[in-house]
């Protein structure tokens, strides 16, 4: 599989910065032609890195569930609506009175795609199938579908939702597998 995503990412930027430094050294300015060699571009000397931190405090039960091998949805105690992804507020009842219910895991594939051109932060994975399935409870879930033979994937096929460990990062998430597997 070669380089980790971090290594690829660092390499990508290291090369750009190296070139930039060489240009500044040679010409006294961070100016060089564009990719096609046509027009002059000022290559930014300031870097902005973005990694966000997102609160999961009120839905931490979901992540505790993953550790127990369970996948939870929330269900409003007043109107009975299911929420997946789970959320703690029911905007329709204007209440925050939710049950955490384990998902049956039984679903039927509504649609899918295989991501061939991947985002840089996903470039270390082989091409992956993203699928949406309707669960027995009536709501949908979006996740990767793990299959041996992508040719055999069909709209309407039965799938099972399960907890998995996403490697190489090693964190818990969820995925679909064919039901008969």
């Amino acid at each position, binding site marked *: 599989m070669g380089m980790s995503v971090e290594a690829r990412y660092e390499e*990508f930027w290291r090369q*750009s910065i190296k070139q930039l430094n060489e240009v500044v050294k040679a010409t006294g300015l961070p100016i060089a032609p*564009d*990719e*096609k060699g*046509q*027009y002059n*571009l000022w290559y*930014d000397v300031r870097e902005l890195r973005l990694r966000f931190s*997102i609160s999961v405090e009120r839905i931490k039960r979901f992540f505790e569930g993953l550790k127990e091998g369970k996948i939870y949805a929330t269900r409003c105690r007043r109107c009975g609506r299911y929420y*997946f*992804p789970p959320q703690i507020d029911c905007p329709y009842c204007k209440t925050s009175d939710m049950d955490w219910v384990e998902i049956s895991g039984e679903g039927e594939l*509504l*649609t*899918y*795609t*295989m*991501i*061939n*051109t*991947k*985002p*840089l*932060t*996903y*470039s270390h*994975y082989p091409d*992956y199938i*993203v699928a*949406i399935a309707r669960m027995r409870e009536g*709501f*949908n*879930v*979006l*996740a*990767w579908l793990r299959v041996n033979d992508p040719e055999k994937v069909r*709209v309407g096929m039965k799938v099972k939702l399960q907890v998995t460990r*996403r490697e190489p990062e090693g964190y818990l*998430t969820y995925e679909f597998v064919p039901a008969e597997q």
Partner: protein
Amino acid sequence: MRGVAIVGVGHAKFGRRTDVNLGELAWEAVKEALEDARLDQKDIQYFVVGNVGGWSAEPLPAVVIGEYCGLNPKGTMRVEAACATGSAALYNAYLAVASGMADIAMAIGVEKMYESPTPTVVEFIGRAGNYFWEFENFGLTFPGYYALYMTAYMNRFRATEEDFCRVAVKNHYYGSMNPKAQFYGLRITVDQCLKSRYVAWPIKLYDSSPITDGAAAVILVSEELARKITDTPVWIRSVGVATGTANLSRRSDFIGLDAAYQAAEQAFKRVGIEHRDTWRYFDVADVHDCFTIAEVMAYEDLGFVERGMGIQLVRNEQTYKGGLIPVNLDGGLKAKGHPIGATGVSMAVEMTKQLRQSVEPRDRQADIHVGWALAHNVGGTGHYAYVTLYSLDKDGSPKVKPKR
């Protein structure tokens, strides 16, 4: 509310515009719009800038453009509605004039996507949905979102990849004649499209709109001023606006975009027409073809034809000039290019020129019978939708086109 008309339009060349910066690119469109309306910056009382950004350096694009284009000290704001940002800018300027807050306003759409490397742009657009639940763990990409619709649509209506390639061929055909288009001069064949690589199966590279830099601008005025400025004001007769869920998993089906349907419903209701067989009322339309599947769903969400019949319009070439309803005679997003924040304003420019019958070359000028045009602009994957109806008539409902 009072009548609002477009009296000036400007459009920069779309493409990889590394020869200009953000302000210079916007100025190309702003200058052309001012000249077209024979107005001066001092006449513009309010301007709004549609720009998504993130991939470009300026975090406050509206003020940068205001300064560069000499629009200071007039008020402004920057708006965002993903790929429908341009229509959001137009809508905001429309509201300013319709409400009486301004008599003359300008909507500017501009995007500089080549200020970041392609992987960064792919990363940004992949997050255009619900970042936490659908990107962080599952790495969807923009073509990936639409591929989920294409798979479901093909399965439900027995459409083929070849059908969708025919949309790309049509839009390249018209884009090849549009000097402002990114793919000016570049026609493609069905075979070329079918052989292009998959980016998110079943979507191929040639099903997809490109990464684009571009700008467009329109000047809107009140009904009191319109005829003093031009003999051919183009009236914004109706705008429908709607949203869809951020999470794609919360959609009930994947064969149409509910937000676009809802926006169309509102837009049609306001001018007193039913939301069916709507191809009869419009001489020409621009629809949001970020991917070929999007154009086919647009035909159906807009009620040109019934659900599942959009693919028949394509097979029978009924959306070419001379067909039931000519669509994307400017090349569409597919061949004209898709500078996210500029696209909706670019559609307004094109619909205005079509209704004025001033499109060159004439091979991409639609025949104007009833004087009505429609623009359909979707943000994200049906996260936002804007449907805007344009007319040469200030009042009255659309009439049915004469039989050909």
